[in-house]
């Protein structure tokens, strides 16, 4: 019998070599890394025949594996952070990462806001910290190849514990600053104790002109009666291939608001994995994506109602100019026991030019019989009548379009209650509109 040999792509071969070279050097439990990489390697990079990656074929989008970035010197890190612009005007506790490595010097551990504890992940992995047991709170995330790659390569990150109501936002600032393309893998674990509340900001930016490959995972375990506001901003460089995952497990009566703004990267895929683990919890998960040129942006969402009486709302808005491609995949899973689930998912896209494309795939998997679930997806152009109305009042066409686009994306952004943060997101939308050709 002839042996079947699977052809590996250059990127897959590169990842395997990178893992061989790095596994002895990466901190922590080598076995769990090896297991994750083995699972990944078995199937390789996901391609269009893998349902979850049908519209984002990583096998063809990722030509080569970029080398993993070395830890920057203190000076390099300081210079990179001095140039970082995303959410720069928002007053927050800065938790910065440069080239995938936590910048320890930038955090004043002795004067953290009350209710916030920060533990560097690399050290925690090396020393076998207690909190590591909380990593990977959502079991089925481990089947996801993007997540597996992060588990295999995660070099650094932080673990945060929020023990009470925290007023000051915590800003996880990710900056990649390297002339040549580099890969990074960071993991952030946020433990929000019962009754605590926090605003988590994430910004991701990198230099233009290099095909950086960040793969970032943020995991939140929100206890009972917690309130987590999560705002994420992707303004990666124009050649970046940015993969990211947000995994959230929510306790009884927990509240979550998550808003992800996407403007950057040549290719991006943001995955949200949510699990309701206690009754009467509520989540509002939004996305606002604006892409142009030949950008490709994928928002993929899976929410499992693992407990009855929970409410989920998803609102994803995508604006596509030129020949860009948008993807929305959303799945709400309601098992037998999750009665009285209330779920509503909406994805709406506007195509500003002839050459753009949007792929909308909302799904509901409902096994319980007493639930309210709905989903909707729309795709169209700006309303001609509205444009005429605005122009008849004197607004030039471009300005009229901008006003309508702002209003369209604004619906997803208005859930951000922190005013400086919301203003920063609105400013990013305006900036995008200004630079439209």
């Amino acid at each position: 019998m002839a042996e079947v040999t699977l052809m590996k792509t250059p990127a897959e071969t590169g990842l395997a070599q990178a893992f061989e070279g790095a596994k002895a050097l990466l901190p922590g439990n080598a076995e769990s890394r090896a297991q994750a990489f083995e699972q990944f390697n078995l199937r390789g990079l996901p391609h269009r025949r893998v349902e979850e990656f049908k519209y984002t074929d990583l096998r063809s989008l990722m030509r080569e594996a970029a080398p993993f970035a070395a830890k920057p010197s203190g000076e390099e890190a300081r210079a990179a952070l001095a140039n970082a612009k995303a959410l720069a005007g928002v007053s927050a506790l800065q938790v910065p990462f440069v080239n995938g490595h936590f910048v320890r010097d930038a955090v004043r551990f002795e004067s953290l806001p009350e209710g916030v504890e920060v533990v560097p992940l690399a050290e925690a992995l090396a020393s076998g910290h207690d909190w590591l047991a909380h990593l990977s709170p959502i079991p089925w995330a481990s089947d996801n190849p993007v997540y597996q790659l992060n588990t295999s390569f995660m070099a650094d990150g932080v673990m945060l514990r929020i023990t009470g109501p925290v007023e000051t936002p915590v800003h996880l600032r990710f900056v990649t600053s390297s002339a040549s393309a580099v890969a990074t893998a960071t993991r952030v674990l946020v433990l929000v104790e019962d009754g605590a509340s926090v605003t988590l900001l994430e910004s991701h930016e990198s230099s233009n002109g290099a095909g950086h490959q960040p793969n970032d995972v943020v995991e939140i375990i929100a206890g009972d009666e917690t309130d987590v506001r999560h705002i994420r901003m992707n303004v990666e460089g124009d050649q970046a291939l940015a993969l990211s995952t947000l995994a959230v497990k929510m306790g009884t009566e927990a509240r979550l608001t998550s808003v992800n703004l996407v403007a950057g990267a040549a290719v991006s895929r943001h995955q949200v994995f949510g699990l309701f683990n206690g009754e009467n919890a509520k989540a509002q998960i939004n996305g606002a994506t604006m892409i142009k040129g030949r950008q490709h942006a994928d928002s993929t969402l899976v929410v499992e109602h693992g407990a009855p009486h929970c409410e989920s709302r998803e609102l994803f808005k995508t604006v596509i100019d030129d020949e860009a491609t948008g993807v929305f995949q959303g799945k709400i899973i309601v098992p037998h026991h999750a009665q009285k689930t209330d779920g509503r998912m909406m994805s709406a896209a506007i195509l500003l030019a002839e050459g753009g494309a949007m792929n909308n795939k909302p799904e509901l998997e409902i096994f319980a019989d007493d639930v309210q679930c709905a989903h909707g997806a729309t795709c169209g152009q700006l309303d001609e009548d509205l444009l005429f109305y605005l122009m008849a009042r004197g607004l030039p066409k471009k300005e009229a379009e901008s006003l309508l686009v702002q209003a369209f994306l604004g619906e997803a952004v208005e859930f951000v209650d922190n005013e400086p943060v919301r203003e920063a997101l609105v400013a990013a939308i305006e900036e995008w509109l200004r630079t439209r050709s």
Partner: protein
Amino acid sequence: MLEIKNLVVQIEDKRILNGLDLTVNNGEVAAIMGPNGSGKSTLSYVIAGKEDYEVLDGEILLDGQNLLEMEPDQRAAAGVFLAFQYPLEIPGVASMTFLKAAMNAQRKARGDAELTMPDFIKRVNAAATQLEIPKDMLKRALNVGFSGGEKKRMEILQMALLQPTFCILDETDSGLDIDALRIVSEGVNALRSPDRSFLVITHYQRLLNHIVPDTVHVMSAGRIVKSGGKELALELEANGYADYRESEAA
């Protein structure tokens, strides 16, 4: 002065305007009345510059400028204002943001400096008070959740703020109760001036009791078929459009 000469317009191969001639002098309030389907709303859209219509012949001149060669925003800057029959709801655009954008866009087109915030607020407040528009209405998204009367008042507010020279009121009376009709008419009357003219499109004489026209034109089958003074409106109210419909059939 607005001059329309031999205007021929079609939409999707259907002829709507058939060689329409009309002149409205500066300071004049001209009313256009006519049966349903006679082309009144088409006329208002074509003057304002809506894309869907195909102009086959004729010209529209505002103070000598050829409007047909201009985009809708350029026409607005040149002084044209259309108060819509059905003002559109624009979710997510705050009324104040919209008003400021419109006022500044027109100022920019005319080479004037942008309004300062206090100046803008002062102007809006003054106009809103006159039209009995409550402040919280201005805080909402444009026309979203407004009643029919509120939407029409909002149109007149825009007219008052933008200070156009040629105003078209497209069935502004439709959907208004008596009080709203009075408020809207007073708002319009306050804007009457020797260098501003109006084209008031309506089905009913009622509006013309409040906004008294200088001239009345009857439109039928895409043309002006009779013109006269304000007494013509009363005549139409008494006799209906039957006479003109016959001319349409002929």
